[in-house]
């Protein structure tokens, strides 16, 4: 097996794991992490295709795209986390009755 096929298959598994986590986990923080795992898988797939040419340096175009993608992913993560925080705050504020804690309900 070549390096390309090993790493691209691993990348696909990472994407699959991330999508599965995104669907089945409830906590929003965990969903954000799952999105980041998907992003990591996609980056790994791109770079493993860049690694296919053995003679020269790895293809710089996917590298540049991944570099751009990392920064875009962190901005999206930051924004998503701000939204998560805001949602949680609204949820806590909408609890009018302090004796009843919504976190403990089944």
């Amino acid at each position, binding site marked *: 097996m070549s*390096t*390309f*096929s*090993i*790493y691209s*298959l*691993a990348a*696909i*598994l*990472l994407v*699959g*794991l991330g*999508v*599965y*986590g995104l669907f*089945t*986990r*409830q*906590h929003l*923080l*965990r969903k*954000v*992490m799952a999105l*980041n*795992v998907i992003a990591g898988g996609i980056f790994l*797939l791109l*770079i*493993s*295709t860049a*690694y*296919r*040419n053995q003679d*020269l*340096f*790895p*293809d*710089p*175009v996917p*590298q*540049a795209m991944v*570099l751009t993608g*990392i920064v875009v992913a*962190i*901005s*999206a*993560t*930051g*924004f998503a*986390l*701000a939204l998560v*925080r*805001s949602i*949680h*705050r609204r*949820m*806590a504020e909408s609890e009018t009755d302090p004796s009843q*804690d919504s*976190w403990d*309900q*089944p």
Partner: protein
Amino acid sequence: MNLILLFDVFLIAALLLVSWRLLGASDLFQATVLFISFGLFLSLAWIRLGAPDIALAEAAVGAGLAGVLLFGTFKGLEPGADRENDSFTSEPCRLDPISPCPGKIHLLLAFTCVGSLTTLLVLAVLDLPATGDGLTPMVSQFLERSGVEHPVTAVLLNFRFYDTWLELGVLVAAVLGILCVRNRFDLRELKVLQAPDVMLRRLVMGLAPTMALVVVYLLWLGDHAPGGAFQAGVVLAAMLVLLWFSGHASITGLSRMLWLFCLIAGFAVMLLVAVVSALWPEMRPLEFPEEWSAMIILGVEVVATLSIGVALSSLAILSLGAVDDPGGS
């Protein structure tokens, strides 16, 4: 079996295991720590695949900054938020009203969807030719006309200039979005949660010159070796966040105008380059004259580093910082 293959298998097993655990662990704190180690393993994989530029950025962004953001949000959530059952599950399930929310139908649907997606992707990858040059010959053909010697920097700041440009736009948009969500239009009133202690202050004071040196070094290195505006910007962001966290002067000390100026400077300079090159008679948009390209790239890189650093540190400070007045938000 040769040794490098063994290393590959171990690395991939570690990556998959860590991502499985971080999605499956019941404790959110543990998941956050695992997320950081996921970033570190990923950056090992970049090194292995011959992409040190990405490894540098990933170690700083994926492991460092994302970890800081996740920890900040984790701490900022209401107490009890680390439990997996949050209030979204208390609503009755639409698909399967009897069982608790990730019911059997949910899991089955998710599994089918993920299974078919994975199969399709595997088929697509197996269909790809096992060797291929991609765009490498083209890049190396035009490299000497790009104004820099490192191919990744040439792609980022010359051949695919618009990618970098729009990416800076995304960064600015993210910061503006967070400002809107937090209903806050200034960084100056954001404070650190705990009082900074003496030891940390001294330590950061001692380290700050070294970090500034690393920023300049990485920026200069991007011309001919792995490094460049992104990596330098991320280190700058780390420095600004550390300075802020230990109570030193940082971007929270800037006036609002100056801060916004630093935030949009990179995008604005690239816009300026785009407009000038579009209006220039014998050039197409985003095409630089060859004799000027080294200068243009260097200038854009310096400004972009500043903008990336300020934007990323604003992200972190906005997610970590607390406001003194409780009714503010």
